[in-house]
């Protein structure tokens, strides 16, 4: 059987598209971004509780008093968890994706319903889109659309289009043929047959499709968080990465609240917009007995008035409170950045979070406008190579992230290592007295159940462990390496640790687990793990010439283990959403750090202005 080089074909296709169709993707990206920014701005603008009130009035109108109260309670709950802004980001993302999905899927569905050939062509494409694992097209999505909302929207779109098309086609096809024939027999044009007979009758099914599109879009939100869209998906990813069950639960519940609200509202809207649904609902209401107050629904006019009043109030508050709300830049030093924008990408690993937010704080104090975006490792490198972000601080080089460096190194600038060396190791809890070195594991397989709890099988250290380390110490017959995931490994460690059970896991330094638990790194007298990595700062190509000041600071960036672990501990203590507050607290205890890491260049004011001018010129190009 000859090897069919499908992967190569895909690669060259992607390259070709990148070279020749960039204008198209840029256009889509501009549309998506503009659309998303608009909706997001609207949703982020009002006071949370006022917007919750608007949502509640909509629920009241569409479903009744009880639904209105529950909607308000649900959104207030999201606000009280401090997830409001992220929830609105996710909501905007889902709304944009849904609207675009409908604009595409309804016409395609109609077309498929009218032509068997189109239908049989479209069906496998939909199957393909729906079942292809999300990560497979997330990376190309970044290549084509850059990071953040557009990539997230595209990923959601690909996933959520299918039910829209399918349900539209089904809805139209299941309209009684005799009715269509009747319309034709009276001389109706095909267009009017569609608009006056088929679509109105298909509407309940089409609305069920809309509902599915929204639900799938929401379920995709978590995955979209991996490509820097932020929102609740980002929170979920971060929680998973840090094994923060509490945060995971909070953002999960917030997603569920959004999902339930959108689900109930769209299904009620489905009844409301279709003539048949309206009649059925009116009948049901007439038949219903019991407390009317719970099912009381205001007239549409009242609902509109309510929404308008709340919107006006929030608009007024926005104008009045707008000034007070704007971010206060603590410029205790010279204003070097002069509002220049810098984007930092990070993987939700502790050293990444700590160094990223440290730099965010430092750069803001120096007058830069800093945006941070969270990614998975792969998408992070892709984004950096595309120039969507300016730098990232969490590159494990030269060993662990070698594949990424091989692929993208030419498009990146290495600003040097700020921490090192890191190390990879097998680790056991400190309460296992007689296991200190890898050699001690021999003959103790029964103690550990013959298992070494590993992380993702794709991780570099797993390959090293299986192919070299175990063999060097003669452990490969005795132990089985269990592939799992980092969070699963940490959960396993936490469980065993709390019960004082024996366990051996794959771990690396720096890692917060070493500060949270008393653990022992098993010694490696044969040096099988090799020398460690350094934590490197990588910037996009051209960053150091665009911004010599910041890249100069980054090149000189160093942190000691004590500094890093104490900062990580501070951030863990502060909890989600307060990373920057934790950095500020930490900086109070380490006041010298800012000036040491980011010394104000001599004659900064003049030079800074120059920098800005050239940088702007470069960007305009």
């Amino acid at each position, binding site marked *: 059987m000859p090897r069919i080089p499908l992967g190569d074909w895909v690669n060259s296709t992607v390259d070709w598209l990148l070279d020749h169709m960039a204008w198209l993707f840029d256009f889509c990206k501009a549309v998506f971004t503009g659309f998303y920014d608009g909706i997001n701005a609207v949703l982020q603008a009002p006071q949370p509780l006022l917007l919750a009130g608007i949502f509640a009035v909509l629920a009241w109108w569409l479903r009744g008093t009880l639904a209105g109260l529950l909607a308000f309670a649900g959104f207030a709950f999201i606000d009280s968890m401090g997830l409001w802004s992220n929830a609105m980001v996710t909501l905007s993302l889902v709304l944009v994706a849904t609207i675009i999905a409908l604009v595409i899927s309804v016409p395609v569905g109609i077309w498929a319903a009218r032509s068997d050939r189109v239908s049989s062509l479209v069906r496998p494409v939909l199957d393909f889109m729906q079942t292809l694992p999300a990560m497979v097209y997330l990376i190309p999505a970044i290549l084509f659309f850059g990071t953040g909302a557009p990539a997230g929207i595209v990923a959601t779109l690909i996933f959520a289009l299918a039910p829209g098309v399918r349900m539209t086609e089904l809805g139209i096809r299941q309209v009684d043929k005799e009715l269509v*024939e009747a319309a034709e*027999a009276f001389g109706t*044009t095909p267009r009017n047959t569609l608009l006056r007979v088929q679509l109105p009758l298909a509407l309940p099914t089409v609305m069920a499709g809309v509902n599915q599109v929204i639900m799938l879009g929401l379920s995709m939100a978590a995955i979209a968080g991996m490509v820097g869209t932020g929102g609740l998906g980002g929170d979920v990813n971060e929680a998973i990465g840090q094994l923060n069950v509490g945060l995971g639960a909070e953002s999960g519940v917030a997603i569920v609240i959004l999902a339930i609200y959108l689900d109930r509202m769209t299904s009620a809207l489905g009844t409301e917009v279709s*003539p048949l649904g309206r009649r059925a609902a009116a009948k049901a209401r007439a038949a219903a007995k019991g407390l009317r107050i719970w099912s009381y629904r205001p007239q549409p006019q009242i609902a509109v008035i309510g929404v308008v009043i709340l919107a006006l109030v929030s608009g007024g508050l926005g104008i009045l409170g707008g000034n007070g709300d704007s971010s206060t830049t603590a410029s205790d030093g010279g204003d070097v950045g002069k509002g220049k924008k810098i984007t930092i990408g990070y993987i939700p690993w502790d050293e990444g979070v700590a160094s990223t937010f440290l730099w965010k704080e430092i750069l803001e104090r120096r007058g830069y406008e800093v945006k941070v975006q969270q990614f998975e490792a792969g998408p992070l490198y892709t984004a950096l190579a595309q120039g969507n972000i300016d730098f990232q601080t969490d590159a494990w080089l030269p060993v662990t992230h070698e594949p990424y460096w091989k692929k993208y190194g030419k498009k990146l600038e290495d600003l040097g290592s700020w921490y090192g060396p890191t190390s990879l190791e097998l680790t056991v809890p400190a309460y296992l007295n007689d296991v200190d070195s890898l050699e001690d594991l021999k003959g103790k397989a029964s103690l550990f159940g013959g298992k070494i709890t590993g992380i993702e099988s794709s991780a570099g250290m797993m390959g090293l462990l299986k192919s070299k380390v175990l063999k060097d110490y003669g452990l490969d017959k005795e132990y089985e390496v269990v592939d799992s995931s980092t969070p699963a490994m940490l959960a396993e460690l936490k469980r065993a640790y709390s019960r004082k059970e024996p366990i051996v896991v794959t771990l690396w330094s720096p890692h917060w687990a070493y500060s949270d638990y008393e653990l022992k790194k098993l010694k490696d007298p044969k040096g099988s793990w090799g020398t460690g990595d350094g934590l490197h700062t990588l910037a996009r190509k051209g960053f150091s010439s665009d911004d010599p000041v910041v890249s100069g600071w980054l090149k000189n960036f160093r942190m000691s283990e004590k500094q890093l672990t104490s900062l990580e501990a501070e951030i863990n203590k502060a909890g989600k959403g307060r990373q920057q507050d934790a950095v500020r607290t930490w900086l109070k205890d380490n006041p010298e750090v800012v000036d040491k890491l980011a010394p104000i260049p001599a004659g900064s004011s003049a030079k800074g202005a120059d920098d800005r001018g050239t940088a702007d010129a470069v960007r305009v190009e």
Partner: protein
Amino acid sequence: MSVSSRLEARHLFKVFGRRPDEAVERLRRGADREDLRAEGTTAAVIDASFTVEPGQIFVVMGLSGSGKSTLLRMLNGLLEPTAGTVSFDGQDLTALSDRELREVRSKKISMVFQHFALFPHRSVRENAAYGLEVQGVPRAERERRADEALALCGLAGWENSWPDELSGGMQQRVGLARALATDADLLLMDESFSALDPLIRRDMQDQLLQLQKTLKKTIVFITHDLNEAMRLGDRIAVMRAGRIVQIGTAEDILLRPADDYVASFTQDVDRSRVLTAEAVMDREVRGDEADCGCDTATPQTPFTELCALSARIPHPVAVLDENREVVGVVRRQRLVGFLGDGETTPVSCDAPRDKGGEKEVARA
């Protein structure tokens, strides 16, 4: 009614499947429907020709699969004939563009469906006004005309109801009103009463005949029920396997079936409802049969009434035309014969006391 609104179908063919034109050629040369079916081609209608005069009800009768629904849909262009022409009102419908054809359908031809095909998202009035809406008639006028049509069909007061609130019979009245509201000259009815239960069906047939007396539409009515065909049809076409095997009046079909297939159909028919004095009378008359004071019949007198008459008077019933001239006599023995199975000649009996026919009447 002008002669121009006659409907004429000439050599209509409809073939579904691959290479229909070739199939038509083969059918013209005498190929069989079954031969084509073996190749996956279905000949639904084969060489159908007929004329419907203005104001006539033309019934197409056949079992399912005989091609009658396909034939009907070629008359208003819902299906394009593979070969042949349809002309109505002097216009060749098969030569029209799609747009012109839609125009004709919206103004001149309307249709009533087997399962009513009412739009469930429209009220009864909106349903009845549908054809007018398609024509672009302003709302006020189309609602007025829709209400008139509904009233004509006995649905005054139901205008604001919804189709699913009505019984089957009433729904079909809405279907009929929708078809009548456009003032189309040609009404196509596709098994319109088949889905109704027998009593309602009877009612609807009566109502259609009643309406037809005043409206004088040209109607093509499809049915699989020969009783219904005989009741409604001025002329009847019997279809079998895509071909029209006989066209004629109810009596023609009943008394002079073209072949065994048609004859087998007529066995179940209630002859007494179809036959009239004209069909059973003896035309050899002396001219003085009506000179007594007894009741007489006309050529249109139904069979059942003739039986009643015959039972009352001691001699054959005289049949008079509109000029009160005797045109025939109906003998009791013939009446009984027709109730049985057509025209049989009486045979003589050996028993001297019996007078043959009298005894048979007693038994019947």
